[in-house]
């Protein structure tokens, strides 16, 4: 079949580019991660302790990573898929068993973060980090907003708002507001959710990821954006704020997984065990400003992060956060509705 033909070319390119690494005698570990998604100090510390040299490559989306691994990219030991991609990769037989769930220190991991349906006992992957998707707003223009209702009301008042250019996130708001699961596969529910978004498009000037600078400058009153906006909030505390909408929101989580094709499986497991240590997870959060599933680590992180309710929400808010599951073919229901939303005006 076709993917195999593709894989030959990609494998050739990759083996040639990775060949110099294989020549070195030193112990190796090769990470394939999202861009800027790990504190470099963590990697330095790992090398310092174990003598294992770490190389880091980055990708921009789950789909991109999967496509490369499926096309036969070898040489990588560890990847950081989102939970639904963790499930897909498991089903495609791309992951290696690590038994990290029975490693010493795993008791520090809050069990609610062992989320992948295909890996209920964490025999394969280690929960890495998580965050939510909410609203970043300009304090002068938006006032004190609480949730999606207030957010869309800004648009009706003639102020400008933006939504993410992401079909599941944006239709997800419609599903939350119509009281349905963000993983609904009922065509009528997905259509109703899209209708909700379409009837609230007043004031939506764009579907974009590039919205935080515009919220700061006041070009946009509020924007659908990630918890990472807290970095900008900490730099401009008087100008902007970030909230988790009271009606509910989505969340994301990535796991640390070892590939079945990993050339240094032992080192990869060593890294997972290293990352289980609370002080290491805390070191990562210090720079990344996101959530860690490691309960013991949460007590070691700087107070301004730990006490930030939008990064570490109370349990009742946590319960309102929904995470995306893979929908298989039913993703196509969202695909058509997304086109309808984008051409609605």
């Amino acid at each position, binding site marked *: 079949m076709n993917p195999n033909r593709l894989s030959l070319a990609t494998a050739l390119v990759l083996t040639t580019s990775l060949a110099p690494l294989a020549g070195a005698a030193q112990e190796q570990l090769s990470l394939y991660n999202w861009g800027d998604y790990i504190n470099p100090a963590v990697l330095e510390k790992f090398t310092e302790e174990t003598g294992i040299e770490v190389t880091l490559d980055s990708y921009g989306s789950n789909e991109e990573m999967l496509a490369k691994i*499926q096309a036969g990219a070898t040489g990588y030991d560890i990847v950081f898929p989102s939970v639904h991609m963790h499930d897909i990769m498991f089903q495609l037989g791309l992951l290696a068993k690590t038994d990290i769930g029975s490693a010493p220190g795993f008791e520090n991991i809050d069990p609610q973060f062992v989320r992948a349906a295909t890996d209920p006992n964490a025999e394969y992957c280690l929960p890495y980090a998580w965050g939510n998707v909410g609203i970043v707003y300009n304090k002068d223009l938006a006032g004190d907003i609480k949730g999606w209702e207030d957010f869309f009301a800004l648009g009706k008042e003639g102020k400008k708002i933006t939504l993410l250019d992401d079909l599941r996130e944006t239709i997800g708001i419609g599903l939350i507001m119509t009281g349905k699961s963000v993983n609904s596969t009922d*065509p009528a529910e997905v259509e109703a959710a899209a209708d909700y978004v379409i009837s609230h498009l007043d004031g939506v000037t764009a*579907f974009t990821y*590039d919205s935080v600078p515009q919220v700061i400058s006041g070009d946009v009153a509020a924007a659908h954006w990630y918890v990472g906006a807290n970095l900008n909030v900490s730099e401009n505390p008087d100008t902007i704020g970030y909230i988790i909408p009271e009606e509910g929101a989505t969340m994301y989580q990535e796991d640390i997984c070892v590939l079945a094709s990993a050339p240094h499986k032992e080192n990869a497991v060593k890294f997972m065990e290293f990352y289980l240590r609370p002080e290491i997870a805390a070191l990562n959060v210090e720079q990344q400003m996101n959530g860690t599933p490691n309960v013991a680590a949460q007590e070691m992180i700087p107070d301004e992060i730990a006490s930030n309710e939008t990064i570490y929400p109370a349990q009742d808010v946590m319960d309102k956060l929904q995470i995306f599951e893979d929908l298989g073919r039913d993703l196509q229901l969202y695909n058509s509705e997304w086109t309808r939303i*984008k*051409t609605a005006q």
Partner: protein
Amino acid sequence: MSLTRRKLLHLLGLLGAPTVFLLIFFFGPLVIMLVYSFLTPGIYGGVDWIFSHLNYGRILGWADTRYEKFDPVYLAIFLRSLRLATLTVATSLIVSYPAAFWISRMRPGRRDFAIFLVTLPFFVSLIVRLFAWVLILRPTGFLNQGLMGIGLTSEPIEFLYTDFAVVLGMTYVFIPFMFLPLYSSIEKLDMAQLEASSDLGATRLQTFRKVVLPATMPGIIGGSIITFIPALGNFIVPSVLGGAKVLMIGNLIEQQFLSARNWPFGSALAMMVMTAVLVLLIVQLRLTRRGEHA
């Protein structure tokens, strides 16, 4: 006999490499796309080898299943793309034509520098240049600040995330494509012919219509075609300057491959664009031929 065979071999040697190149890099992908457009999407991207005509049914009107439904919105997006691409060609032509005339009449040193300036934007990444336009066009951007500063407007005007911004951005990006073919045909224009025309009593407008325009027509057609084709399929400009709200066919295709995991539908949409472009090229060929005979 041996002479013709040598000629044949010579010809083969000359044309062999480009033919193989075209077969592999043009015809090959086209066949893959055509085949994919008649298959079923794989759950995790890629394709399942099951025949389906519904990808075209969704666009043209006969699909009605759980996943594949006809929706006139796809044709509407296609028509919008045609409209925006045509507008882009028109504005690039209006800007480039006089500019090419002006530059072709400069003295050589200055002329080379001017042509260098036209191609200069290529040295900077397209994305960076488009984000610069965001800074210019946004409500608190330079353009609105300037307009309000000189008292022309009192409120910021919506420039960003409109059709206007998309056409402006594409015109900006594709002007060199229009300019260079125009320049090469305008440069060849014989000034003596213009003088002869006015000596024989033609008005300036008549000279332009009867002498200048026909002589530069190949440049106009060539420039228009190579501006129109990339403008029709462009997805970066509408996503940055149109806020992904001015959806063009390129965005829809990108969405099928990169976020919706529906390669066959993406391929069917791409085939539709290809067909439109081919029709256009045939029309162009006819037009230029007629021009030569006239």
